[in-house]
């Protein structure tokens, strides 16, 4: 699974994607966020961090698998 990054999350990670290694099991959004916060503590300092699954806002319990498109959505600031 590869996570797409936008805005400040790209700066924190230093790339525009994060690959989740095969041996790491993240079955839902909550587990993914826990893993990401461990790898990139800077993400935990944001005012908020949402996750999008297949182009829609997901909740903690939203399931993830290799076919889903996953992206981190830091606080938006359009307009």
């Amino acid at each position: 699974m590869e996570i797409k990054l936008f805005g400040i999350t790209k700066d924190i990670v230093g790339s525009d994607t994060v690959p989740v290694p095969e041996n790491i099991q993240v079955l839902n959004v909550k587990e993914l966020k826990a893993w990401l916060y461990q790898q990139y503590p800077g993400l935990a300092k944001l005012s908020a961090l949402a996750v999008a699954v297949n182009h829609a806002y997901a909740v903690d319990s939203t399931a993830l698998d290799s076919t889903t498109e996953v992206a981190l959505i830091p606080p938006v600031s359009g307009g």
Partner: protein
Amino acid sequence: MIKLVTTIDINEAYSALHHPEAGGLALFIGTVRNHTSGKSGVTQLDFEGYEPMAVREMEALAQKAQSKWPIKKLVMIHALGSKKVGDPVVIIGTATAHRKDAFESCEFLIDELKKSVPIWKKEHFEDHTVWVNSHP
């Protein structure tokens, strides 16, 4: 008309709102200003979007607005890329039979766009840059 563009064409947005039954057109244009939260010296803004999701969120907001107000025509256009002070970056327009519905629906759409549509702006100052809203 809902889309993300490089450069906003205000005439195109206005033309897209024409409808024979619409007697009121409200247009909101958001532009780049040279100051933010009391700090002056903004020289440029960069806008980035998660494009497929942004369009999907804008479409969902349009549907919500259409269920609340009798909207004849609707426009939501956001620009991405680098913008200078004074450049238009977002244009929201609604055309309704009467002005009250046009004003209210237009305000609703820009307010909601700012809350949920995955678009980010980076402010450039003389000596540093800031992703807006990122940190408490």
